[in-house]
């Protein structure tokens, strides 16, 4: 199903991911990381529920568990000692908290990456790289075209060779190597030939003429501009308060977090809004759609 987040302009999506990745990688504050975690999971669930849960159980939860177990085993800093390992090293409360937090952080980065992969399709990434390096974007496009072609042809060659009795799964090692080399040679020749033909096709269509332009299939709308501005403003406020030290956290030697107050709550709130922006957008669109449906 198409969701509203996919319809954002690539630039808006890019700003979102840069901000949220940046903040979640550099900051390990219980509230901030918690907000990131919740919004990352919600986003993942909305984008592709089935795949997400598969990934969640196979990858993210193990990562979190490993983070929680490993840190206290190797880090013995902290003042609140709970227990002594047999080798005499202490198990501290601080190291457990730190382990939990880092596990959650890694988990949310994975989760965000999942959404990133789903949303930032190749043409979007190409558009973004093309903004900075126009020539590279065409090369990427050609590589993305070449890889599936190569794979397909390779399977074709392997099957064809096998069927005339020259497959690479023969028992005789000498023949096996010989046939594998031949397949490699065929693929090299093929790649060369097909790129010659491709370059013919490019030249025939005027590639290399002076003043090449770049077609962008995305249109930036007012909505995108509003979204980008909103994200940049909230993002800057959050980053500013993190830098200045209004929001901080210590894990060692003892756990200490910034005092809460009106200002801090506002920053938390702003960050929550920012990180949930795509989720809000998707849900709002669904709600509007439903209400329009029910009116009919």
């Amino acid at each position: 199903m198409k969701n509203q987040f996919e319809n954002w302009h690539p630039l808006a999506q890019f700003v979102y991911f840069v901000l949220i990745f940046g903040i979640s990688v550099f900051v390990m504050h219980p509230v901030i990381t918690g907000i990131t975690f919740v919004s990352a999971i919600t986003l993942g669930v909305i984008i592709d529920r089935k795949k997400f849960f598969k990934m969640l159980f196979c990858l993210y939860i193990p990562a979190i568990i490993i983070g929680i177990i490993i840190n206290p085993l190797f880090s013995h800093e902290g003042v609140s000692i709970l227990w002594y390992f047999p080798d005499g090293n202490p198990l501290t409360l601080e190291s457990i908290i730190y382990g939990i937090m880092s596990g959650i952080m890694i988990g949310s980065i994975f989760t965000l990456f999942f959404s990133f992969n789903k949303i930032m399709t190749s043409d979007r990434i190409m558009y973004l790289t093309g903004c900075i390096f126009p020539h590279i974007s065409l090369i990427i496009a050609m590589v993305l075209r070449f890889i599936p072609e190569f794979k397909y042809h390779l399977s074709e060659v392997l099957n064809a060779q096998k069927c005339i009795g020259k497959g690479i799964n023969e028992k005789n090692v000498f023949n096996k190597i010989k046939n594998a080399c031949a397949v490699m040679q065929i693929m090299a020749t093929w790649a060369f030939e097909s790129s010659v033909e491709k370059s013919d096709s490019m030249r025939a269509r005027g590639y290399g003429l002076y003043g090449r332009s770049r077609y962008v299939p995305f249109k930036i709308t007012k909505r995108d501009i509003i979204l980008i501005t909103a994200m940049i403003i909230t993002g800057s406020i959050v980053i500013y308060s993190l830098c200045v030290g209004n929001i901080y956290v210590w894990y060692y030697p003892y756990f200490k977090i910034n005092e809460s107050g009106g200002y801090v709550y506002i920053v938390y709130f702003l960050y929550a809004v920012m990180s949930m922006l795509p989720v809000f957008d998707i849900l709002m669109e669904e709600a509007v759609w439903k209400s329009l449906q029910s009116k009919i």
Partner: protein
Amino acid sequence: MEVFTIENLTFKYPQGKNYALDNVNLKVNKGEFLLICGKSGCGKTTLIKHMKAALAPAGEKSGDIYYNGTLLCDVPERIQAQEIGYVMQSPDSQIVTDKVWHELAFGLENLGYKNSVIRIRVAEMASYFGIQNWFHKDVKELSGGQKQILNLASIMAVQPEVIILDEPTSQLCNIAAQEFLALLKRIHEELGITVIIVEHRLENVFPMCDRVVVMDKGKIISSGNLQQTIHNIKDNEFFDAMPVPVKICTALGAPEYKVPVNVNEGRCFLEKYMAGKNLPKESSTHYIGCGRDNIIEASDVWFRYDKDGEDVLKGLNLNVEKGSLTCVLGGNGTGKTTMLYTLCGLLKPYRGKVTVKGKNVKKWGNGLYGKVIGMLPQNPTALFRRDNVYEDISECIIDGKNADKKIEEISRLLDITDILDMHPYDLSGGEQQRCALAKVLLTEPEILILDEPTKGFDGFHKRKLAEIFKKLLNDGITILMVSHDIEFCAEYADRCALCFDGGITVSGDVTEFFSGNSFYTTSANRMAREYFPYAVTAEEVKELCITT
């Protein structure tokens, strides 16, 4: 006014022995639909490549080519890129980028159009060619026919004056080819664009063109409208490649310069011809199964590529009798190639059983390939391993005795003697196909499995191929082929089967099979079915008409 004027063009490839083009003179008028045809390797592709400076091959060249009155080499590249569009043979290798929309925009980007212009043009092209449904797709997801339509559309996006097409439908199935040609016709009629097309499959394209140029050994042997062409080449061996209605009606003595060129005209002609004659009693020569053993048996085979994907084969049942020529017909994407791979054991079905010579394919292992089964893949280049044809095919000989003799025999049989010392990649599509076939035949398999063997063949070589088949069948070899080429199958197969939706829908002996279908049948049958419902080949119709 002439768009192209070619004067005394002579050309020789650096390694070639003969002249690829020999003193060619040709004028192409504005707004013309020009068909260039000829036997495989006659220089037709070489000729049209010279019409675009960026593609002109290197070699010895003399003579002049003018574009709109200016020497082509003096026409700026920008103008050439803009005004002369060129569509190549292979749908795949001319696509540059990975997305459909990007491919459409590629030519316009090169010419430096502004974003707003490109947006309009791309939208226009997508709507005109019916691409909007797959506009955002990856190129790799498209079918062959869609790819070729995309190629045409992306050439048309820059609004050329002339489009040159090099066998654009040779890799497509019949239905997709017709769709493509219909689009081409529409472009020509609605936009007045000059079309120069090279083809060897004339059935569909011949009736729609204004002028036909026939080439042989680098020379133009005939040039004129349809009727003149029919008249000119009546005694040439290339006449075999003409559409079936032309062949039948000429044999029946259609008046000169009024020969029917399509099925409809052919039917009208037959109506007049048959008026007042007594029809023979309906008779069909049923193929009596000789009670031969089945050499390949597939029963209830199910297969899919991905666990979550769709089934490609859905309960396929097929029996291939020993020593018979069995043809499987069907459109693109009906699972024909998958079926062949499954029968060879290259793909493992998740349900059902395939046996070869009474032994389950799974238990055969590697002993199956080479001596028992030899397969010619759809893409012949997948077989070539060496730098020249001779070395390449001699690699396949199993026992060294009489190797030279065998090679000589097979190359004579397949008409590749002249090209034995060339690089396989330098050959034309039809030549590559024949060399690949030579390789497979030299492994001396008991069962020959062929995936589209007649692709890129002209009438002459098809007849040659049929002779080879006959010889092999006499030697007791079983042939199973998958093809789009209805006419070929009708003429030479023992049994035919129609593959549809992952299964075999109909199967039977040739006459039974084709006379039962009304669309998916040969043109000869479509033309004459009122009178001779059981006649499927041009020869049969001809004979029956004359004898009644």
